[in-house]
């Protein structure tokens, strides 16, 4: 895993003369460019949950009319994803038909990729996440997943920034994170059948049901939250005591969750694999600092090593 956060961008651009510049830009700016065939575009957008933006060409599609129609459909399905328009000469949206201008957040040209750089910084990498925090989250979570799923191997991808609001799987947990330097939520998302498959192979849970899945996910969330709190938040007196809250909205029909903010989210994907059967469980972990975010005040809690007792060990008083 590298130290740099990445973000996945869907590249809807068939132009061969610009593809090298776009690829170079993605490589240099921590973007993972994804391409998709036009006939699969809508199904990919409906199922892919972890995109940061869409790079869209002014020439995409067989005609200007189709180009506009596709852009409108994308925006209708995924309004939270910024669509950045590649143009031949303008780095803004001047001259774009008013009926579709609203679906684009900005324009750029490959003659001057700095214009795209500014847009990416504004819409994707707008929040700074301390490297120590990002590394620490994956360490904490990997340790906990390994301890809860002893028979599985845990791997994680490079963490990435997401603007999507789509929920993965059927079961997710939410827990608030409250401190003087951050206020928001941690969310874990997974698929019920995958977890049931693991539980039903465990002799301690011979006939597991969805309630066992709920309980297990709840405890994993609790363990990660506890370790996060111990390492990065510390004593309860350090919290801000802030009374501000915003509603969270979940739309089950569209598998959509909103935290009331346009802020991007920090996302980690963990894959738990059974090396014997080849079966896997995917767990998405998202951090949404929707209420406050002050990374300049971030610090790790330093404990006196004389006081440290390993987890699982009994500290007698």
């Amino acid at each position, binding site marked *: 895993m590298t130290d740099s956060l990445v973000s996945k961008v869907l590249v809807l651009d068939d132009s061969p003369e610009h593809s090298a510049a776009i690829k170079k830009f993605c490589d240099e700016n921590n973007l993972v460019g994804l391409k998709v065939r036009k006939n699969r575009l809508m199904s990919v957008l409906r199922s892919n949950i972890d995109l940061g933006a869409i790079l869209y060409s002014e020439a995409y599609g067989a005609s200007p009319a189709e180009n506009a129609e596709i852009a409108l459909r994308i925006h209708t399905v995924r309004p939270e994803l910024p669509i950045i328009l590649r143009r031949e000469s303008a780095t803004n949206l001047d001259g774009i038909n008013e009926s579709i201008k609203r679906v684009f957040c900005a324009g750029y040209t490959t003659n001057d990729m700095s214009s795209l750089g500014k847009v990416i910084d504004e819409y994707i990498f707008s929040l700074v996440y301390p490297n120590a925090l990002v590394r620490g989250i994956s360490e904490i979570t990997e340790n906990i997943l390994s301890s809860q799923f002893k028979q599985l191997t845990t791997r994680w991808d490079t963490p990435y920034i997401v603007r999507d609001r789509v929920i993965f799987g059927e079961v997710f947990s939410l827990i608030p994170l409250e401190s003087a330097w951050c206020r928001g939520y941690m969310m874990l998302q997974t698929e019920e059948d995958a977890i049931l498959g693991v539980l039903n192979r465990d002799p301690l849970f011979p006939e597991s049901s969805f*309630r066992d899945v709920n309980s297990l996910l709840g405890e994993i969330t609790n*363990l990660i939250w*506890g370790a996060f709190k111990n390492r990065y938040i510390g*004593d*309860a007196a350090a919290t801000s005591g802030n009374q501000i809250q915003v509603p969270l909205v979940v739309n089950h029909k569209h598998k959509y969750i909103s935290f009331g903010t346009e802020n991007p989210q920090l996302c980690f994907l963990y894959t738990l694999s059974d090396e014997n059967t080849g079966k896997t469980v995917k767990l998405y972990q998202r951090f949404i600092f929707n209420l406050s975010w002050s990374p300049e005040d971030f610090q790790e809690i330093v404990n006196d090593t004389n006081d440290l007792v390993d987890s*699982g060990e*009994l500290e007698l*008083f």
Partner: protein
Amino acid sequence: MAKILVVDDSSTVRDEVAGFLKSNGLDVATAVDGKDGLAKMKADPGIKLVLSDVNMPNMDGLTMVEKIRSELGNATVNIIMLTTESSPSMKERGKAAGIKGWIVKPFKGDAVLETFKKLSA
């Protein structure tokens, strides 16, 4: 009459801890939160050892401990917290309420079994 009471809002933890202790010959009861734990303690004065989480709905574990000592007048039951928390202030609050020890999750039964047997004898 149970000897050990396991208090945790997570059924996963209750099943794991109680299952381990029972498989090692111990008598175990469970409770789903501090309020339930307090009720179970009141109903069964033979409990010798309480293992309790801290963060629970309805009544947290440290409040339950304080009420076991004050409202139930039980000064002798051994109480160990089994929790994700490790803050010094929480441990101090627990010590002031007379807890015997503190374990930061995850639970490792083999490391604590002999001590639990002694404390529940």
